[in-house]
């Protein structure tokens, strides 16, 4: 017999995170949220 009932596992941690939210939480500060720029692409902000 089952020893105990295990809870479901939410792979998203119960949150609807878009790419940009995931990167922001990870502390990334990339161009447009998810683009790695090199020297030639870097725009003068």
């Amino acid at each position, binding site marked *: 017999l*089952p*020893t*105990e*009932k*295990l*809870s*479901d*596992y*939410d*792979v*998203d*941690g*119960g*949150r*609807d*995170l*878009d*790419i*940009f939210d*995931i*990167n922001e*939480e*990870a*502390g*990334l*500060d*990339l*161009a*447009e*949220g*998810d*683009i*790695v*720029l*090199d*020297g*030639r*692409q870097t*725009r003068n*902000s």
Partner: protein
Amino acid sequence: IIGDEYRWPKTIPYYMEDDLEINAKGVILKAFEQYRLKTCIDFKPWSGESNYISIFKGGGCFSSVGNRHVGKQRLSIGRNCDRIATIEHEFLHALGFWHEMSRSDRDDYVRIMWDRISEGKENNFKTYDDTTSSSLGVPYDYGSMMHYSKNAFRNGTEPTIITKIPDFSDVIGQRMEFSDSDLLKLHRLYNCTQGSTFLDSCDFERENICGMIQGEGDQAEWVRVAEAAGGPDTDYSNMGKCTGSGYFMHFSTGTANNGDTALLESRLLYPKRGFQCLQFFYYNSAGPSDKLKIYVREYDKANANGTLRFIKTIDGSPQQLWQLHHVSLDVKTKFRVVFEGSKEGTGPSTGGLSLDDINLSETTCPEFIWRVKNFSHVMDNTTVNTPIFSPPFTSKEGYRFQMGLYPSGKEGYPGELSAYAHLVASAGDSGQKWPCPWKQMTMMLMDQHPHILKRMSNQRSVTTDPNMKATDSQQFFWDDPRKVGSEVTDADGSRYFRGPGAGTAVYLTHLRAKSRDFIKGGDAIFLLTMEDVSHLTVTQPVPSTAEPPITSGPTGSTGSTGSTATSENCLNVQCLNEGICMVDAGKAVCRCAVGDDWWYYGDTCQNRGSVMDKTNLALATSLSVLAVMLLVTVVSVICVKKKYKKRRGDSSFIMANVHA
């Protein structure tokens, strides 16, 4: 991005780093399959090519734009990035696409609410002018998977992007699949004519019925109709919604004689991979003994007229319903698909066999179908936190699983569909290994658009990691459901144990589920698979002719340290000549651009080298060595000469009493 130098070859070499999650690796392969089906872009394991994409688990999901010619070009699929649409999104960047939001004509279509954007994030809403970025003649696409969602980078609760056509407010930011415009742009940028693994699609809307032919030697015919006596009343493509359209193919068994057959053959098809999936909708209103059989007609030099090979009989008793069917094929030569309807007994005087929305591609078929009838009603009338379950399905390896769906979401997620995959076992089951090792379960809500290339199905995958512990227990999460699950009784009275579920509370919003063709004829169709992915636990082989890829250090390992460290450590480092700064063993270093016969080098990539320089250097070195050797030889000769001359001079001296 404008510039041919940013294009990749149509077959892109990739290397999956060891740090990737196994589920992510499996989903990446699924994303590659979508690229193969819908575009001419293909992917192959890196075999020493000078430029390749290294996919690793960084602190998030990110990529460069276009081919940077840096040798190893990194693309991160970090934690929570293992969704097919996210992976396709990042690869679209790598292929040379910016976000839809950065188009030069963006402001014609959306309003940016600058005061609602988080401080310091305004630069994410810049646009590129048309000298840097081209829209490739494709209209602004709210449905692009490269578009931000309405709440991107917001500082409060109000949206940062307002679409000028309000209906698109919730369309933007879809992360389901390529939109038609995404594909059109990709086709234009890479001169694609069609998908590599796509073979044929037919909804019978045109009179030419997609080049299909009536077979020879049969006694009856398939007829293109908009409705049939005895059913169906409408086709499946349009469900009778459009006047003057909505056709399907029908073989009337009501009017045929006993023993009659009718052959419907596809146009000639040329396979490349040797395996195919035939998918079609089938309506059976014929007699109980009438049959639909699938054959292939294969052609080779010995059989110019083709040889008919039986594949399978489509099972099932007559039903007042368009049913979805999949048939796996394994054809390696030129062929046609043949549908044979046969009347094999007495039956009703009306009705027959009907076909619609046929799709053929060189892909693997989904294994299991779960159809939820009257799905809109189910969504609207199920209370929150109430699941419904698919029947248990048995995989090739003998594991049983089922999908649990919360039509009104889990608690706290109203307006969402929540979806979970569960392992299942019955009292007498034996032969499985527990905890279940590395099986990837995929739950796909099928977009039932007639054309496979235009579908934007929603799918999520979870993988059974045999070492994963439950969050609130020391038990293995994917252990035997008889041990970690609970016993349930099915509607038919059968009893089994259902293990805990893994999935997501935010599978799809109701709004999206009610869009496109996710619900057709009132029904939703879930396609489920369980695949063995244990081969993905093994390191991808490194080509023998190439240097091994640099092991992901602080930048490439798990967690958020990686790329944050990259950005922080690299703040004061400027790499010249397209070099890229990255962190290696805790230090910021420049990775310099290289080409086939040139490269940059130096701390900041300030120096340029080339094969020509190397040749010149070798020549100069050789000449210098030769000159030095000559000099040494000349000096030696002179010295020896001098010495002997001196000796000869000394010999005039006569020694006395030598023998005394």
